[in-house]
Every structure is written in C-alpha cells, then in structure tokens.
C-alpha cells in the first residue's frame, strides 16, 4: 500500500486538470494583489470594530454554582479561572455516543484542539482557556496524552452546557470575574469557532480584548502598548519587565538593526584579530 507521502508525491506530478487563472508578470500580479489587499485591510478593521462591539456587550451575572471534575477532584467555575481575570471555555464533544468514543473526541472538536496556540501568551493577558466535556477525567487524561494536548480540560457534571448554549453544539463562552463574582460576556459558536485557536482570536472575544492602547475600549479598561508585552512562551515568568533590547527594537527598529549590525561587525573583527 502506498504511504500518504507516496500518494502525495504522485499527485504533485499530475498536471493541473482544473481551469487555472492567468499567468502574469510579477508587476501585474502585484497590481491585482494590491487591489485585494485593500479588501483584506478593510476586513481586518471590521474585525477590530466587531471586537470593540463585543467589549460593549452587557455582562450576564452567573449566579448558579456550577461544579466540574478536574484532574484533582471537584472544582467550581471560579476555580477554572486559575486566578486570572478572564476565562474562555470551549465545550468539546467527548463522551459516549460521539463518533470516535472512547479513543477520540469529535473530529471537528479535535481539529479545533489542534489549532490551540501556546497558552502562555493568552495567560500573559490574564486570561485562561479551558476545554470542557462530559467524559470522565480518566478518559480526558488519556485523550490529552494521546493527542499531545495541554490545555486544562474539565468534566461537565451539571446543566453548565445547557445553560450556556453548548449542550447540542460546540461553542466558546467567555467569562470575566470581579473578585468572586462571575459574569458571562460572550458566546462564539457555529462557523465562528473555525476562526478560534490563535491568541488573538481568544483575546478578541473577551470583555477586555487584547488590552492594548490602540483599541477602542470603554473608559477605564486595562491597556498597555502593543508588542511590548510579547515574550517567548518559556520566558514570561523569568522576565517581568520589558527587555531593553526588545524595547530598542520597538522604539527605533532601524537604529536597533544598525546597532545590531555594528555589534556583529565588531565581534567579527575580534575573532579575526
């Protein structure tokens, strides 16, 4: 039997049987691309405006005391925040009766889980992502190990899925807490879930957004300059203030590059001397 790779190679050798677009020069292509780029930029801005509207949604107080099973026993909805300000919960279908059980979660939910970016960046904006399913914890632990997934994943034990519109279909609910009080702030489901997975997609659905100074947010919302808060996913804890070199690159990119080249040249001279 041919392996996938072999099959792929065979396919690549075929000539395109479909109707293909015009083949043009680099210049002509650039003109066409610039026209489309204007639309791309408009879409990006409309996404920003949509996120700004989400930040102006009213909040729904969550009064009921929900209980989940976690790897270390019973936990409350508040515990799922892990001490952070915001929480996004994705309801994934993994339970008896779902195609793939008990070896796998639902295919669509699994595809979604495979898109989840490293959570250190989201966590650095005081936001936690968690998955929740009906499957008992031992099954969830096995699934996570098998698929290499690392997000926190809880077992729903009560009417949480029904109450938050994710009993029949998948969906992301966003929450914020004020001390011990929890509020629901948004719901994304249906094809909206396709766009989820990047750090930005999660932040853009939260009540506080990316928490960056350029954003159109209600007065008093926490905001810091863009880029400066970025770090390597394994370095957020180690570096609590902005690294001077990173600040240099952000404030004066060309100057920083020149200084870097200069330092390069110097180190070369040292070696040859």
């Amino acid at each position, binding site marked *: 039997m041919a392996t996938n790779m072999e099959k*792929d190679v065979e*396919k*690549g*050798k075929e000539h*395109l049987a479909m109707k293909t*677009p*015009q*083949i*043009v*020069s*680099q210049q002509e*292509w650039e003109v*066409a*691309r610039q026209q*489309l780029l204007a*639309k*791309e930029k408009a879409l990006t801005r*409309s*996404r920003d405006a*949509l996120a700004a*509207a*989400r930040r*102006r*949604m*009213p*909040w*729904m107080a969550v009064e009921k005391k929900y209980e989940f099973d976690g790897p270390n026993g019973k936990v409350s909805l508040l515990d799922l925040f892990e001490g952070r*300000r915001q929480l996004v919960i994705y309801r994934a279908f993994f339970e008896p009766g779902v195609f793939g059980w008990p070896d796998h979660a639902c295919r669509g939910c699994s*595809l979604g889980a*495979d898109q*989840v*970016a490293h959570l250190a960046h989201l966590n650095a904006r*005081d936001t936690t992502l968690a998955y929740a399913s009906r499957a008992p914890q031992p099954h969830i632990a096995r699934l996570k190990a098998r698929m290499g997934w690392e997000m926190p994943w809880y077992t729903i034990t009560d009417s949480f899925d029904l109450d938050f519109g994710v009993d029949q279909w998948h969906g992301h609910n966003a929450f914020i807490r*004020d001390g011990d*009080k929890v509020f*629901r*702030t*948004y*719901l*994304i489901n249906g*094809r*909206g879930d396709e*766009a989820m997975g990047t750090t930005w997609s999660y932040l853009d659905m939260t*009540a506080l957004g990316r928490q960056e100074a350029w954003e159109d*947010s*209600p*007065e*008093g*919302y*926490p905001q810091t300059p863009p*880029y400066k808060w*970025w770090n*390597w*996913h394994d*370095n957020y804890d180690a570096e609590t203030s902005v*690294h001077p070199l990173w600040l240099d*690159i952000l404030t004066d990119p060309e100057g920083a590059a020149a200084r*870097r080249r200069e330092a*390069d040249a110097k*180190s070369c001279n040292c070696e040859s001397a």
Partner: protein
Amino acid sequence: MPNIVSDGSGAPRIVDRSAFHTELDALRVREKAHTHESDAIAAARRRLPMVEVDETTTLIGPHGPVTLLDAFEGRRQLIAYYFMWHTGHPAPEQCEGCTWVTSQVRELSYIHSRDVTYATFCQGPYEESARYRDFMGWEMP
C-alpha cells in the same frame, strides 16, 4: 488592575439571561456578515492571477541543498513563511514577532491532507536556525 465593575466609568451593564441573548443575537448579524466577507475575500484570492517562479531556486534543508520545488514535499501547494533570522545572534536576540507567529502554527496534518505544505524560510546558515527551531519545539520544515 482597575476594578471596572465598581469604579470605571466604562462599567458594563449587568443584565439577565434574556437581555444578554437579545444583544448577542443583534451582534450575531455582524459576526455572520464578517464571516461571509472573509469567505468572499478568500474566493477573490482564488481568482488572483499567478506568477511563474523559478522552481530551481536553491534552499538549504536538513539534508543539504534542495530546490524550491522540493520544498513542496510532493504536495500541490506551498505556504512559505519568511522568518527574519539574525545570523550569529543567540536565541534571545532572534525576532520575537516571527517567533510569536511561528509558535501559533500548530498541527499540520490537516493542511497536508488538503495537499498543502507549510514551511519556514529564512536567511543564514541552516544549522543555526534549525537549532533554534528544535529548541523552540517547532516541527514544520
């Protein structure tokens, strides 16, 4: 962090479930329009003309020099992300933005099944950037 519920002038309204759903449904109309516009732009991308590229352009991979065509790994399409590599610099001085973007790239089996290869291209010696890739735990070529 300021307490936006009790003292911020931008404090949100706290509403019950039915009022929340009314507002959610109103915003859903915009959400759907956005998704559809995104689909329309993707459709327009599929209608862009194409430029012929020299397939013999040389790249360095884990087993030495390969051509741009080889980078397709036999698949029909290739997405190449250009990573700004600073030759000779240690890991902490490599581009944070490119590092950020690359760390958002996850499981590739799905796009492979759609006959698309994802690869990272950069300048500088292969061994140097490959060491960074391995250090960061990335798996794309």
